[in-house]
């Protein structure tokens, strides 16, 4: 069995692979362009993989499931970085703030095990126009060591000097937390888990 993690992008063959028959109308028109779903942070039960599909508008998100056997290809947010996927978009798309910032962000994050999620990751992986002029740059980072709040603040400052709001989620196995929240926190912060989110005092301690 392949390892599937939240934020991974899964290519499937057809709309029919999505479970349930209550798909919104936009899903049937927009989804076939990419045939790509995003793995949600939720439990895999009975080999049903929790995924989301995205439309053009922000509120066009729909949660569903696919069978593991429906997966044709997996693209991880980390692969997009290793392949420098931002170099392979059209000149016009390179002008979007969130895409334009990527080569600079890559310099800042040299040596980090990081990936691109959100609308930008989806666009780079699927070659469909998903990012907007106003899109944030959603990044994930799988650390092999913890960093203190001061280092986190300075890293976020470095990442946010390229004309787009960069949001870095720190990945701890199946869980994730916002580096920005950690950097500015005085007490507890939110940890997203496969189940309900929880509040933790120290996000670096494995639960």
């Amino acid at each position, binding site marked *: 069995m392949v390892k599937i993690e939240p934020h991974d992008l899964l290519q499937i063959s057809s709309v029919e692979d999505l479970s349930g028959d209550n798909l919104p109308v936009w899903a049937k028109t927009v989804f076939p362009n990419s045939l790509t779903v995003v793995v949600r942070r939720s439990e895999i039960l009975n080999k049903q993989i929790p995924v989301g599909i995205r439309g053009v508008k*922000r*509120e066009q*998100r729909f949660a569903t499931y696919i069978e593991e056997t429906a997966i044709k290809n997996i693209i991880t947010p980390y692969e997009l970085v290793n392949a420098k996927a931002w170099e392979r978009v059209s000149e016009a798309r390179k002008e979007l703030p969130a895409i334009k910032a990527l080569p600079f962000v890559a310099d800042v994050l040299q040596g980090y095990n990081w990936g691109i999620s*959100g609308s930008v990751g989806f666009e780079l992986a699927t070659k469909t126009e998903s990012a907007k002029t106003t899109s*944030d740059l*959603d990044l994930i980072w799988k650390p092999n060591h913890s960093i203190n709040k001061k280092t986190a603040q300075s890293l976020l400052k470095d990442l946010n000097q390229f004309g787009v*709001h960069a*949001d870095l*989620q720190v990945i701890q196995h199946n869980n994730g937390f*916002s580096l*920005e*929240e950690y950097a500015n926190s005085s*007490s*507890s912060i*939110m940890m*997203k888990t496969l189940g*309900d*989110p*929880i*509040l933790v005092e120290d996000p670096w301690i494995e639960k």
Partner: protein
Amino acid sequence: MEKLHFNFDTKDAISKPVHVGVVASGDLEVIFRPTDKQTEVNIVTGSDGFKEVWSNVLKRFFDRYPIQANIEINDFGSTPGVVNLRLTQALEELHDEK
């Protein structure tokens, strides 16, 4: 984008402002401010069409914790689970270092 407004007749006055959450996809910012007027909740959300869900989440919250406050919420497509957690976290901050 949608703006939502709710009022509640809750009377446990809060003594200080608190701010929790972050501006990030799937998350929200919650700000509680003391008020001597009726409890008011103003929400700006990127996800349209969830008024009913917000109403239920808030009603359950105020049934349990009848605080009197002016509440501002900036939502970036969070789930009800995340909303509940942020509201609880704001309450905890209220009771911290009092």
